[in-house]
């Protein structure tokens, strides 16, 4: 099935290495390549010591990646706040989209600077990242198809037990995605207008996000208070007080889901697979209410690796088994006849 390769030599190994450490691991020779998100793919590429073997869009065309998830209890009591945050997410995403159309504008320079500061990488890395990821918020039917596919793959892999769907009260994978992904809030958010008054002055919404992850650029610029005329952040303009959730920023989506579970995060930016895994396996009471980006990951490798054959016996780093990158890696190599093993 999914894991089976057709020969003993066609083995590729994986090892979990945090994206931030992958470049150094490659340089040190402990890995031969890595699958990772931006800005780490561009960073490795521009450092000159690595080549991009494949951008993720060439593996899974238009695949989804990060999403906005919200704690259901929080949503029930603070729907207005959630809508405003979603609105901000939309505005900021649109702003970035427009800004990158004109790379000579001041805003573009500012954008690069903000990205550099946030990701601790230089601006050319940020620029390259912006070219390789598609920031979006729309929940499309393609997205829902992808979510079904991902869930099915996890069930195939026994990372989600067959019985679990029923335990959570879902009839089928389709039913699960139907309920777990909800585009109606996004639609409602369209109509939100700026507000003079901060709705939740004493109770700022706690936003979770990942360390240095440029997929989640929208939140970064929305939190900046120099871009929007005056000295207010985009959140403040739309009347919400925000704070970085405790323990954040997180190293990966799994950790952020754990923070959701312990009630530290109200709204979070994270990868869709951990949102699925932890919701089904651990009952973390979240809901996916928007997309954040599609594509924008890559396999970078030692430049000597140029073809599939070159991967025989090599070791590839992934951000960890709950990431979409890991799943993509598994799928890509097994469907090309490899046996995938942990190093």
């Amino acid at each position, binding site marked *: 099935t*999914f*894991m089976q390769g057709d020969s003993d030599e066609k083995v590729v190994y994986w*090892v*979990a*290495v945090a994206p931030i*450490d992958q470049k*150094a691991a490659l340089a*040190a020779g*402990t890995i031969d390549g890595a699958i990772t998100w931006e800005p780490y793919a561009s960073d490795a590429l521009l450092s000159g010591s690595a080549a991009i073997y494949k951008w993720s869009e060439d593996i899974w065309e238009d695949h989804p990646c990060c999403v906005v998830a919200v704690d259901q209890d929080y949503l029930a009591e603070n729907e207005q706040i959630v809508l405003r945050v979603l609105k901000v997410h939309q505005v900021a995403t649109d702003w970035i989209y427009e800004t990158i159309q004109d790379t000579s504008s001041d805003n573009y320079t500012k954008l690069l600077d903000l990205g550099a500061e946030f990701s601790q990488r230089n601006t050319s890395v940020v620029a390259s990242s912006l070219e390789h990821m598609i920031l979006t918020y729309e929940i499309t039917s393609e997205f829902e198809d992808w979510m079904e596919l991902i869930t099915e793959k996890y069930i195939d*892999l*026994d*990372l989600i037990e067959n019985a679990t769907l029923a335990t959570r009260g879902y009839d089928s994978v389709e039913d699960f995605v139907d309920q777990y992904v909800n585009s109606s809030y996004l639609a409602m958010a369209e109509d939100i207008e700026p507000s003079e008054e901060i709705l939740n002055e004493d109770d700022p919404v706690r936003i979770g996000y990942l360390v240095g992850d440029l997929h989640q650029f929208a939140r970064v610029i929305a939190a900046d208070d120099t871009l929007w005329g005056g000295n207010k952040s985009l959140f403040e303009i739309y009347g919400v007080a925000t704070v970085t959730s405790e323990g954040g920023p997180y190293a*990966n989506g*799994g950790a952020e*889901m754990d923070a959701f579970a312990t009630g530290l995060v109200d709204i979070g930016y994270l990868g869709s697979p951990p949102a699925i*895994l*932890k919701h*089904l*396996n*651990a*009952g973390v009471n979240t809901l996916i209410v928007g997309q954040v980006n599609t594509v924008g990951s890559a396999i970078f490798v030692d430049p000597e690796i140029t073809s599939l054959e070159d991967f025989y016996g090599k*070791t590839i780093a992934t951000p*960890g*088994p*709950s990431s979409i990158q890991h799943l993509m890696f*598994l799928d890509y190599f097994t469907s090309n006849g490899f*046996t*995938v*093993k*942990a*190093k």
Partner: protein
Amino acid sequence: MDVKGSGKKKERASIFSQWPFNKFGNEEKWQQLFKTLVITIISLVAFLITWWGLSELADTDYLPDPETVFRSFIDTFQIRDPLTGRNMWDNIMASLTRVMWGFALAFATAVPLGLAMGFSKNADDFSKPVVEVFRPIPPIAWAPIMILALGVLLGPIVLVFIGVFFPLLSNVIFGVRSIDPILSDAARTLGAKRSHLFLKVILPSTIPYIMTGIRIGLGIGWMCIVAAEFIAATGGGVGQYIVFKAEVGRYDQVYAGLVVIAILGLLTTELSGYIERRVSKRMGML
């Protein structure tokens, strides 16, 4: 575990062997054994029921019921994990191998250093400051830097090494220093030179202390390897198994991993404790 010097004491087992309720004849001894057995069983059953009840009551995925955990425990040994291509045996071998390497390294360095530091004041004066600089750092605190600097293979081994090294060193030094001076006096009146003293008096009488150091060190070694494998490891390992499973939310399997760790830790310390007692007895240090 520290144990106070006991001084000379009459051979009466404990305060309880004298308390009336513990004065048993032979048939009563069997009765008592039977009672202990019954209470033990009651205790374990109560534990399982409590576990079951809690997992039902709490209705959280963080506390699966014992049956589920037991099934996952059995499965992990039989079914290869789709993510890693390993079953639990592979993980156990991986962890054990690391512990053994780290332990071997620590043994090979701590014992000679300890003997030297215990035996020679100059060696002690010279080594102690450096040792004391490193000793208070919990071995696990080294994890991030060691795993980065030495890689996922050597890093965990070095962590185990650090964990085992210090308790072993302390025990060896303590062993050398605990030698009853009267024994070296006796050896000297029998014509022993300094090298004789070292080989024929200090070395043999330190062996039980080395064994104690080994037992304690192995306990800490297990702690270190689990922590190291949490942070990074290649080649599998029970710790790695646990984090991967926690990451994807399969908590039944996380508990199965904990059970494995418990059994492994128990086996190693029981085994080394057994050897320690045998050696102590053989060395006449009862």
